């Protein structure tokens, strides 16, 4: 198909406006960046620490999302039981819930005096809030629905008869899942994981509520940006640039590797 169709003006104009709207803030960020002092500011320990914590926690939470979210998506797509609709709605609640409310809910469940937290504390002496683990938990809570929805959609679209063909060839349930189902939905899983990672990397509300804002322990990049904005706006811009650069780089790399269209 070499004949390229010219988009009509009534689509082209709003499309351009939308693009400008999305790109303008990034341009502002680049225009106001203190390029001359960038090097020294980046060298500051706090920046690197926050960056490292952000990357590690987002990656860990994506791992947890994959471990729990893929089976959950499978159940939503394939199983049938009374209350399935309710379960599906519950899974997507974190999507519409303000993250701060999510953080409060996590505190009430896993906090020292929380529903499960009190038992964890008394039985194992484990306290989750305001630890790095809490950062991962908060990010997982807000990011998992992205993965579940993406993988569930892929599972629904996948042709079940491939699994039947595998069964006639002697494959058991686990082999079918591992060698047929998962590879068939791999693009969906990859896309979900990328969305999930990006969402976790940008997580702010639930993290600050449930994990607090301790440099080196729970202070991720978005938290550092917000804090810096209060007393050193230039630093906030630098931190934002770093976050922007890292996300774009990772997404671009993932896109080339996985999300080929």
């Amino acid at each position, binding site marked *: 198909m070499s004949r390229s169709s010219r988009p009509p003006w009534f689509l082209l104009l709003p499309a351009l406006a939308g693009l400008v709207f999305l790109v303008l803030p990034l341009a502002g960020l680049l225009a106001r960046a203190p390029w001359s002092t960038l090097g020294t500011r980046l060298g500051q320990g706090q920046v690197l620490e926050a960056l490292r914590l952000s990357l590690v926690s987002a990656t860990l939470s994506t791992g947890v999302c994959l471990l729990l979210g893929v089976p959950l998506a499978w159940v939503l797509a394939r199983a049938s039981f009374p209350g399935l609709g309710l379960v599906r709605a519950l899974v997507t609640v974190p999507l519409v819930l303000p993250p701060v409310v999510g953080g409060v809910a996590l505190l009430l469940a896993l906090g020292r005096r929380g529903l499960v937290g009190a038992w964890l504390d008394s039985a194992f002496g484990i306290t989750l809030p305001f630890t790095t683990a809490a950062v991962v938990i908060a990010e997982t809570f807000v990011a998992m629905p992205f993965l579940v929805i993406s993988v569930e959609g892929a599972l629904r679209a996948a042709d079940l008869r*491939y699994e039947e*063909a595998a069964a*006639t*060839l002697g*494959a*058991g349930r686990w082999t079918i899942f591992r060698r047929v189902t998962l*590879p*068939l939905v*791999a693009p969906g899983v990859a896309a979900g994981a990328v969305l999930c990672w990006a969402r976790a990397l940008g997580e702010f509300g639930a993290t600050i509520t449930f994990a607090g804002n301790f440099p080196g322990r729970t202070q991720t990049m978005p938290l550092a940006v917000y804090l810096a904005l209060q007393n050193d706006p230039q630093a906030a811009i630098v931190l934002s640039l770093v976050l922007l650069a890292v996300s774009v780089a990772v997404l671009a790399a993932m896109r080339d590797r996985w999300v080929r269209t």
Partner: protein
Amino acid sequence: MTRDAGAKGLDARLVVRRPEFDLDLALAAEPGEVVALLGPNGAGKSTALRALAGLVAMPAGHIRLDGTDLRPLPAERRRVGMVFQDYLLFPHLSVLENVAFGPRCQGAGRRAARRRAGEWLERVGLAGYASARPRALSGGQAQRVALARALAVEPGLLLLDEPLAALDAHTRLEIRAALRRHLAGFAGAAVLVTHDPLDAMVLADRIVVVEDGRLVQEGTPAEVARRPRTDYVARLVGLNLYRGTAEGGTVVIGGTEGEHTLDTVDSLQGEVFLAFAPSSVALYRTRPDGSPRNLWRARVAAVERQGDRVRVRLAGPPFDAVADITPASVAELDLSEGSTIWAAVKATETHVYPA
């Protein structure tokens, strides 16, 4: 058709209940025998195949293969190879890995499985495509890979669901011949589902005709072609078929308006089928002299070109029939839809057999 529990081959009674129909089909196949399930769409042929493979549950019945009841076993433990209608080659695996999938599942090591897969690819003439992806294959090649994949598990029973339906006419001819060779070399029982009578005639040793989930006719391809027992089969093999009562060289059939008597040369008694070929029907504009025994006046319902001949559909009363004539005769007879003509069939051209 019951057999000893220790008998070789397939002996099954397939029972599946569906909202659309109930399937209840007795099916047997000797080792090395190819049985074709022939029937119209929705007759339950594919459901029967899926029941054999263990892909649908059977509330009753049995499936004995070489003396073992497969019914309680899940699909993956049945030793049944299946070739699906659109092949269902795993798109994320290479051709070799597709064929090696079964042996791997049976516990063969990676290298042993690949070697076995390589041998099967060689046998179907696709050794050069081992590392290709399924989407790079033509329809005929994909069909051969699917066959190799099913045979690589060394099944006791091979199932083929419309194996040629997805191919174009030219490829079909070639692949049908190849499939026939491979089926001849297969030691186990094979069950083939098709709605194409030609596939069934060429590939099968025995044909089982299924309509509405029930067996309506069974026999060798020649028997089924010569003595159809339902309108569906008669249409497939291109014969006019009537059911009636025979009495001393004549057969009384139920026409569109009351009964009609036809002369035959067979002397049977009782319930019979009467069949004659469309090419044995002669058409006349006026009542012919020296009248043949079976002569009737019919209305022309349709005139259709079919290859080098013309098919004329005759509507009753007295009864519906199909006649094949040459294009020249159409002009000569001045045939048009709605016109009335004389039709005749010689008694020697009719074929009568017990119902």
